[in-house]
């Protein structure tokens, strides 16, 4: 009895998070896989949701100016339901749907309601269809995307822009992750000496990572401008001004530098915490053995902060592969998009949610494969 009570409490406690994860993560994965085989168009979703006044629509369609002396029979001869739904209500129909409407649409009742002034009310396309279809109402309850099989995946394979964006994401990740890890470690080693004003340094390194990526993008948009401060500094050493963000060959590296700047300080704090756990005499002992700075760094410090390195590299890879915000603000040319950004524009700007979903599904498989490989590599390393 007590046991069952504990079971019950356990399920009750985890129920909310299960619902949230189920609805907003697990269901979307399957829905994305389904969409990736269709030509899902978000604009068409609105066709069944837009509302209208039925009487107005019928009057316009049947060209009626007065509601007096109307005859159901005459009206019926002029009324073509499929045509009315398509041209007047703006709902696109395919062949099957048209055939079913011709068979099962209750035009007679609609015309009777119209003559008896029962149609003067607002309704949506799906309400209208469920009201006047005598059968197969479910077919018209909302927009169902058409199944297109592997078409989206073929399109993806032959889309040079997609491959370019995938390469950009990978490039971003393999350059940014090691550099930010190295800078963070270097700063942590430096800060681990007996340093005065360590609080100031920590705060100044940390501020970029607690600032919204939106605000940071704005700050850097100013810095990267052609007459901006970065070009002025480079001018000191004789480098001519570059329009960093408009130039396709410099835009991505510029955003990468900004990304390193944002995260290095945060990761430094992770390393510093790890370094402070290392007993001081261990480092001092190596000093007595005559180890110089670099050997000490590679042979003593690196192995001791291995758990932190793997944590930082994992977080770095996840973060950089999915980078979106900074790309959204700063990148102007499609050639410099990352995959996350390419999915976004396809779904929300070009209204090709089916195609976007295909890329998303590919991206999911790609990231999962990477994660599995990375786990294996890290596990093998720990045998040393």
């Amino acid at each position, binding site marked *: 009895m007590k046991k069952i009570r504990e079971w019950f409490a356990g399920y009750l*406690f985890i129920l909310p*998070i299960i619902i949230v994860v189920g609805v907003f993560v697990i269901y979307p994965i399957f829905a994305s896989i389904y969409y990736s085989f269709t030509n899902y168009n978000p604009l068409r979703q609105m066709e069944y949701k837009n509302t209208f006044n039925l009487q107005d629509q019928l009057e316009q369609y049947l060209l009626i100016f007065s509601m007096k002396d109307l005859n159901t029979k005459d009206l019926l001869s002029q009324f073509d339901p499929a045509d009315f739904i398509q041209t007047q209500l703006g709902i696109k129909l395919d062949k099957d749907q048209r055939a079913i409407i011709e068979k099962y649409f209750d035009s007679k009742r609609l015309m009777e309601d119209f003559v008896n002034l029962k149609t003067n009310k607002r309704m949506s396309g799906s309400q209208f269809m469920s009201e006047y279809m005598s059968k197969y109402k479910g077919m018209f309850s909302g927009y169902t995307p058409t199944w297109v099989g592997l078409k989206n995946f073929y399109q993806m394979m032959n889309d040079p822009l997609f491959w370019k964006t995938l390469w950009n994401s990978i490039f971003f990740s393999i350059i940014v992750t090691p550099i930010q890890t190295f800078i963070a470690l270097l700063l942590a080693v430096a800060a681990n000496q007996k340093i005065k004003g360590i609080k100031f340094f920590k705060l100044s390194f940390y*501020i970029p990572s607690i600032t*919204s990526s939106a605000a940071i993008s*704005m700050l850097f948009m100013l810095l990267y401008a052609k007459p901006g401060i970065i070009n002025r500094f480079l001018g000191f050493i004789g480098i001519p001004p570059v329009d960093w963000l408009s130039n396709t060959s410099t835009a991505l590296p510029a955003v990468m530098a900004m990304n390193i700047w944002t995260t290095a300080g945060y990761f430094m704090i992770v390393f510093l915490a790890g370094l402070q756990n290392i007993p001081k005499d261990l480092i001092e002992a190596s000093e007595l053995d005559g180890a110089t700075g670099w050997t000490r760094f590679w042979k003593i410090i690196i192995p001791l902060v291995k758990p932190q390195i793997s944590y930082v590299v994992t977080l770095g890879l996840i973060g950089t592969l999915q980078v979106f915000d900074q790309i959204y603000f700063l990148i102007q040319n499609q050639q410099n998009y990352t995959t996350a950004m390419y999915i976004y524009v396809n779904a929300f700007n070009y209204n090709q949610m089916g195609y976007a979903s295909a890329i998303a599904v590919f991206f999911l498989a790609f990231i999962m494969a990477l994660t599995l490989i990375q786990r294996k590599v890290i596990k093998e390393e720990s045998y040393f």
Partner: protein
Amino acid sequence: MRKWEIARKISYIVLIIYAIISLTPFIWALLVSIAPMNYMLDGKPTGVNIMQWPPEINIFKIPPEVFGAPATISNYGQVFTVTPYARWILNTIIYAGFVTLGNLILDAMAGYAFAKLRFPGRNYIFTLLLGTLMVPFPVTIIPVYNLLVNFNLVNTYAGLIFPKVASVTGLFLMRQFYMSIPDELDEAAKVDGAGIFRRFWQIDSPVALPAFATLAIYTFMGTWNDFFWPLIVTSNKDMFTLAMGLNYFRTSYYTFWQLMMAASLLMTIPMIIIFLSFQRYFVETSTSSAVKG
């Protein structure tokens, strides 16, 4: 030990250089934000040239000069008049506040269940939940967006808040903390006749207060700064959050740098205050999360 002295000197140089790199964008933004606004003359911006080089700065004058013009804080006021900035602050507080509240309650409940309660399938469910952390967000946005459209939740607070109201990362943090509390505490309370809910709420959770604080800070800051989700859910300017609103100062013809920098700094100040007030919790999470890796 002369070597140590040299090492320390190099360390200082490294730290100072990086501190300069780290802070320069903010200082520059501050300078621009206090430069007087440009006005339009024949459709062309005239007045202060914020790209001027070198920036003529004179802090000994009253008022001080930036870019050769008297400094002013009126841009910070203007941000509130040319955009519904106060509304955006309210939206951001509602968004971040409710998401934080939801995470505190729901993540803690689930974390407690996974740490202290026994029920069939516990480990399977936990592994499944952890696995969802691998799913990159671009994969889920399209179906989630369509879900919100179907339930008429686009441009609503509910649409912003619900998908974020519980998180697996938070659950993991809370579970780790509850697991570190010795089981004897629970056993003793059980002997005293405390039910499950009382043990969760009155025995274990007060001990877990630091974990609650950490979770609250991280969730609040993450949501406050979040740009991606408001971008998907909001299109009506009255529903924008602060991060989303920044785009508003950039039109296709002209960028209002002074206002944009003022707005960017304004939304950063609360984060710096939170960081300074709760610094120890930041170090704590970075340590505890690193240990698991």
